[in-house]
């Protein structure tokens, strides 16, 4: 196999998962599950090959579909950063599907389980397409596919609360999609291109002649608001607890750790590759993102503290973590972007672990997610307790776990930013948010490890639960212990981005 064959792999990841969707619709439920798991493993191998290829050659590659040259046609682009993010996304997706399979069987009507895997496959295709694409309108189309599939995996658990949550989730997402589309159309009208590279050239020309600045700023602003709504930045985060908390655990994990991150990655890509990062750094949008991110970090944590249900707490802490990522983009500078992208990965790994352990803790507590009933659940189900604690410690930011490394990177970025106000604001918010995180996660850990009198002991013998949780925990530790290595990879990817 020649190396150039690897350049086909990004397209394969999209097309294979796209075709697996209808295929899973025709398969029986057990076969659909095996097919999905097998496919994810295959995709992981392919993306690893792409990562290896881009790292050894030291340059990104563009796959031109149908061999139509640049201003026309559609392109896929793969660099180190895209490959790394895609790899983490696929690993988390695989772990979520395997780790939550028990609850998929419980929560979903038996005749519809294969449909769930159909949706998961379509969602994988959309995630991959949004990570790889070099065309802004392709980004829009797959963004809508992602919205529809995330609504789908939400409503498969047929209780009234999920339907209501799905409607509210969809309304917010539709507002976001509408704004995103308008932003794309405005930028298209100004530049006359849809591919990212020619768009950036046109925008650079317009900026030097200071033409159409208003239209560019408007378009970018509208597009940014759209994606902020979709990913749940601070004032738009109130739908999160219902959405993540009532869905079946796999859906909760996937929605909170992958879907919202994918929107952020697309936004980041547009900043870097469509607008050009130097131009973006002059625009006021960055400061707005910083302020909203800082507010989200605190507001999300405060809401999480007030929650009386463990899933709602974990969901609100997602709002805070999304704030961290936007704060990283807002701080700017190479270190800031590295920190933001690192946190995308760190949070994806950690949050999926939390969402996959809470249902097990609730299983040994009479099926309740309320804190008062969870007392001693970490002793009753030791494995789940340990995984929950590891993820919680990572959330708080204890060294050797992923959360610590990203907080360290954020602090470094703030010091590097060169602005005193920014540094002070970020440091205060980081300290406050970490403290609040510590309060509610340690409170939960004390609660689940308080001795109880029931004497029930469950040991998680199911390999199908242990393996994905071990994968996620190892990823968490790897991101924490070898953060310099991953940060180096992200920096290499960013230098290919420009």
């Amino acid at each position, binding site marked *: 196999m020649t190396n150039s064959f690897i350049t086909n792999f990004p397209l394969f990841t999209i097309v294979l998962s796209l075709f697996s969707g209808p295929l899973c619709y025709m398969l029986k439920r057990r076969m659909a599950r095996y097919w999905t798991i097998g496919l994810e493993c295959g995709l992981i191998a392919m993306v690893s090959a792409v990562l290896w290829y881009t790292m050894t050659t030291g340059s990104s590659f563009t796959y031109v579909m149908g061999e139509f040259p640049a201003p026309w046609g559609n392109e896929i682009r793969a660099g180190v950063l895209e490959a790394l993010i895609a790899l983490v996304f696929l690993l988390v997706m695989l772990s979520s599907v395997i780790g939550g399979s028990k609850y998929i069987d419980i929560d979903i009507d038996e005749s519809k389980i294969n449909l769930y895997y159909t949706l998961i496959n379509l969602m994988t295709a959309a995630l991959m397409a949004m990570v790889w694409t070099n065309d802004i*309108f392709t980004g829009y*189309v797959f963004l*809508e596919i992602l*919205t*529809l599939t995330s*609504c*789908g995996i939400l*409503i498969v658990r047929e*209780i*009234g*609360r999920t*339907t*209501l949550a*799905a*409607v*509210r989730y*969809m*309304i917010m997402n*539709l*507002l976001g*999609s*509408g*704004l995103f*589309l*308008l932003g794309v*159309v405005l930028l*298209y*009208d100004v530049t006359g291109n*849809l591919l990212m590279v020619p768009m950036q050239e046109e925008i650079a020309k317009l900026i030097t002649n200071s033409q159409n600045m208003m239209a560019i700023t408007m378009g970018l602003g509208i597009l940014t608001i759209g994606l902020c709504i979709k990913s749940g930045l601070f004032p738009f985060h109130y739908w999160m607890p219902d959405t993540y908390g*009532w869905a079946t655990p796999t859906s909760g994990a996937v929605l909170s750790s992958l879907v919202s991150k994918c929107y952020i990655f697309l936004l980041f890509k547009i900043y870097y590759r469509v607008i050009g990062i130097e131009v973006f750094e002059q625009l006021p949008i960055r400061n707005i993102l910083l302020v909203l991110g800082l507010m989200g970090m605190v507001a999300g944590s405060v809401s999480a503290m007030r929650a009386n*249900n463990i899933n709602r707490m974990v969901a609100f802490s997602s709002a805070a973590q999304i704030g961290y990522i936007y704060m990283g983009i807002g701080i700017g500078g190479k270190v800031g972007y590295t920190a933001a992208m690192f946190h995308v990965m760190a949070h994806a790994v950690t949050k999926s672990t939390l969402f996959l352990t809470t*249902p097990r803790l*609730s299983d040994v507590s009479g*099926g*309740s*997610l*309320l804190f008062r009933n969870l007392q001693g659940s970490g002793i009753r189900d030791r494995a789940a307790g340990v995984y929950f604690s590891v993820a919680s410690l990572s959330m708080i930011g204890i060294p050797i776990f992923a959360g610590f490394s990203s907080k360290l990177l954020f602090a470094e970025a703030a010091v590097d930013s060169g602005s005193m106000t920014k540094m002070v604001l970020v440091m205060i918010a980081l300290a406050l948010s970490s403290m609040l995180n510590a309060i509610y996660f340690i409170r939960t850990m004390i609660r689940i490890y308080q001795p109880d009198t029931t004497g029930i002991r469950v040991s998680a013998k199911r390999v199908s639960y242990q393996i994905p949780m071990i994968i996620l925990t190892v990823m968490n530790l790897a991101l924490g212990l070898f953060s310099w290595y991953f940060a180096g990879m992200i920096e290499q990817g960013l230098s290919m981005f420009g």
Partner: protein
Amino acid sequence: MLSNLVINYEEAVAIVLFGIGFTTLLFQRNLVRKLIGMNIMDTGTFLFLASMGFINGRKAPIVVNGVQDTAAYINPIPASLVLTGIVVSVSVTAIMLSLTVRLYHRYHTLQLDDIYVLSKHQTEDR
């Protein structure tokens, strides 16, 4: 400034439509009205795209009478983008309508506030 609005009246109308749709989707409490708002919002975007893509005096990009000069034709891409957008909009509307039907069957009302209050009384706490 105002003269620009008059010259580009199609775009101005498109943005006004977008605004109407956006606020309807955001502020109406009735689910069906929300969906109508969403469709108005999308239509506004399509109108914007279609009117921007059309240049007066040029023809559809189909070669007739051997005229191959690109200045004689309009770019077909905006129109195809509108088509793609319409397809997306239709599928989203379909999903939202089916969700609305499901909610109506369960709660017998279309007012989102009432549904929210009703769902709070349910004891589906796991």
